[in-house]
């Protein structure tokens, strides 16, 4: 299988983080080589003939070769055999992809415009981040609350559409520690391309710790959770929280309830809805004196609970 992997190295496939990924890549490597050979035959043959039989005089005579049953049979039969071989190999790998393991760790995934909401068995919820233990069968039970999405982890070579009104499932067994991208692969509207999550593969101990901490965090008061999020999302690098000092963006200290002047001259009272808008659509209204387009949107990256927590935290900056 060495030459498959050689082909694989040239094929720009993402890192292989599951056993299935390696199998898919072997098949892909085989196909790449076969494809290369057939392209060389067809395109090479074409180029060779084009130069060999270039028109020499205006009245060239050509051979009258209308057909050859043997040849035509040969070049339909050989491709057919190759195609069937590839099909059977594909079937074999695909069957492993689709056969759900028994006793897998189940995690619920909810796709919605435009975020992945994750819920673990112990009730802990996270957004756009799945943490799983290494070398464990994990089964994701997925559904959507609005339109079609598709759960795609390139490094695992898995993809499954997420459909409103029913469950679909996908499984994997990661054998590599690290962080991998989750993309939404089915077009779902405005921020389809922003519906990106992370899949973290950690050791079993770290996984258990993560779940415990997560559960404890869920029990914290709202403002405390907001404080944690504020740190996590690095909001403090642009907004000061304990003085009027201006960093990149306006200070949030004692802002709640006050009035802000916007760049179009209008005055806005800083209330819950204004804060919400400023987090989700930061460039819609800009506070006077600050440039547009600096703050990234958090649309799709925060769920309602997290928004509540953040707003509550900002309210309490007194």
């Amino acid at each position, binding site marked *: 299988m060495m030459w498959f992997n050689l082909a694989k190295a040239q094929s720009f496939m993402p890192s292989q983080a599951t056993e299935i990924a390696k199998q898919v890549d072997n098949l892909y490597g085989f196909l790449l080589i076969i494809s290369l050979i057939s392209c060389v035959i067809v395109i090479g043959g074409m180029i060779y003939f084009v130069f060999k039989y270039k028109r020499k005089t205006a009245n060239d005579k*050509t051979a009258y070769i209308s057909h050859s049953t043997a040849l035509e049979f040969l070049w339909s039969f050989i491709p057919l055999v190759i195609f069937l071989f590839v099909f059977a190999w594909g079937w074999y790998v695909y069957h492993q992809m689709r056969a759900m393991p028994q006793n897998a760790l189940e995690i619920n995934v909810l796709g919605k415009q435009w975020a992945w909401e994750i819920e673990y068995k112990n009730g802990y919820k996270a957004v756009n981040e799945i943490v799983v233990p290494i070398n464990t069968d994990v089964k994701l039970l997925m559904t959507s609350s609005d339109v079609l999405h598709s759960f795609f982890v390139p490094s695992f070579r898995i993809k499954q559409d997420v459909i409103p009104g029913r469950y679909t499932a996908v499984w994997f067994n990661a054998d590599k520690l690290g962080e991998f991208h989750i993309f939404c692969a089915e077009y779902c509207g405005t921020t389809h391309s922003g519906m990106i999550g992370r899949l973290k593969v950690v050791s079993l101990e770290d996984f258990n710790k993560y779940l415990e901490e997560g559960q404890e965090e869920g029990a914290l008061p709202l403002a405390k959770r907001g404080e944690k999020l504020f740190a996590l999302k690095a909001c403090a690098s642009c907004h000061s929280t304990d003085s009027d000092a201006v960093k990149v963006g306006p200070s949030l200290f004692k802002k709640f309830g006050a009035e802000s002047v916007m760049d179009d001259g209008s005055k806005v009272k800083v209330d819950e809805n204004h804060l919400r808008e400023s987090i989700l659509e930061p460039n819609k209204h800009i506070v006077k004196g600050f440039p547009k387009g600096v703050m990234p949107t958090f649309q799709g990256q925060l769920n309602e609970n997290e928004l509540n927590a953040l707003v509550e935290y900002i309210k309490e900056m007194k």
Partner: protein
Amino acid sequence: MASHAHGDNYINCEKGLWSWLTTVDHKRIGLLYMITVMTFFLIGGIMALLLRLELFAPNAVQGVGGVLKDGNVYNQVMTYHGAIMVFMVIIPGIPAILGNFFLPLQIGAKDVAFPRINLLSWYCLMAGATLALLTLFFNKVDTGWTFYTPYSIRTGASTVLMVLGAFIMGMSSILTGLNFIVTVHKLRAPGMTMHRMPLFVWALYATAIIQMLATPVLAITLLLLAAERLFGVGVFDPKLGGDPVLFQHFFWFYSHPAVYIMVIPAMGVVSELITTFSRKVIFGYTAIAYSSLGIAAVSFFVWGHHMFVSGQSETAGIVFSFLTMLVGVPTAIKMFNWVATMYKGSISFDTPMLYALGFLFLFAIGGVTGIMLATLPINVHFHDTYFVVSHFHYVMVGGTLMSLMGGFFYWFPKMFGKMYSDSMARMSFVFTFIGFNVTFFPQFILGAMGMPRRYFDYIPAFEQLNKISTVGSWLIGIGFVIALITIIQGLRKGEKAPANPWGSKTLEWTVQSPPPHHNFDVEPVVTGGPYEYR
């Protein structure tokens, strides 16, 4: 050919805009289609350039929103690019322009069977396109050209108008197909047996069958989608117990055969070009002719390969993968037979032949990547990534559009009675061909790396290849601008074309250029095959 007096051909036999808008002459209708399709191609092409421009850099670099401001605008442009190119350019492209013009000429008929229905089908295309493009002035549609439910039910766009436009354009396609089938069956000249028909006619015939059988299903699907939006009938809406995936089954039951509506005529054109410019009888006429029918037949049973990750059963996936592999066989036969035709030929490098060779090159790549996509586990990884985008552009642009251009430059002298500048036309080919590969080859790699399609923004790892791809799109743009200049120059100042500049053997070259109003002054009698280069 003896010189003819003023008013002796189809172009100058009648004058005035009105004579064109009410014409029932298949040649004039072909030109009407040509103007229409070229206009839509220009609009769709500009949109493609905008999309590539937006993807030149991730937004983190460009600041929020690139050229297209935000994801919504991008999604709208992406939708119109797809809808225009599919429904208004590639589907009508070869059959309605070249097919309309040359099918009757190639079988020695004076017109298609139903000339007035032929004109009606042009008006259907115009009406449908107008409806669809009207949405640009209301809530622009952002569903993607596939109208997947339930997004297309929920979005605030004027989807109904767009969908009705596509419905009426479908009518146009059906009527053209109907006309071609009856023409082929009933209007062949004496001696023109089915097995003496040029391969372009065979290809159009196979295409017409698909148009007739597949389009009605699209029609009802689109009507149900419109009803879904207007009355919420619940057929595709999970809220009422409907199944959004059923829409995909219905949609691809049409739209997969539809890709063969787009590509089989292109194969027909290439068969003509290769035999003419190799000055040699086509290798394996029967195999090429019947493989078109074979592709047409199998094309109806492979729609599920668009849905390997949609949640359909494992068995369904396996069956569809198997059948898709089978489509590869007739396609492979064609490829090998074309190459074999060149063996011991006398090959010239006129512009149309360059396009045909370009077709073979690009279609070979499109074909092998198609086999990769048909392989189940690989499809799971590539599905809805740029790999798919690249694959179908290789087949649709590299295949169909290359062949349309080749066919156009081949028949240009016949259509207009003038020659174009060969060096200019070659230059347009070089730019499009190189630009095409620079644009789309990196997209295979992007797809393998995992970049999903329909993305307005991407992670930094994808930046380099996207930059290359965008630069390539400019080269394609230049190529088509040069082609346009070549055509306009040829029309204005081109030398007078002889009746048969390439030494072709098919019937359309036996009449003067441009052809007379009724095609044949004397009904031709056919005594042999279409490519008797002896």
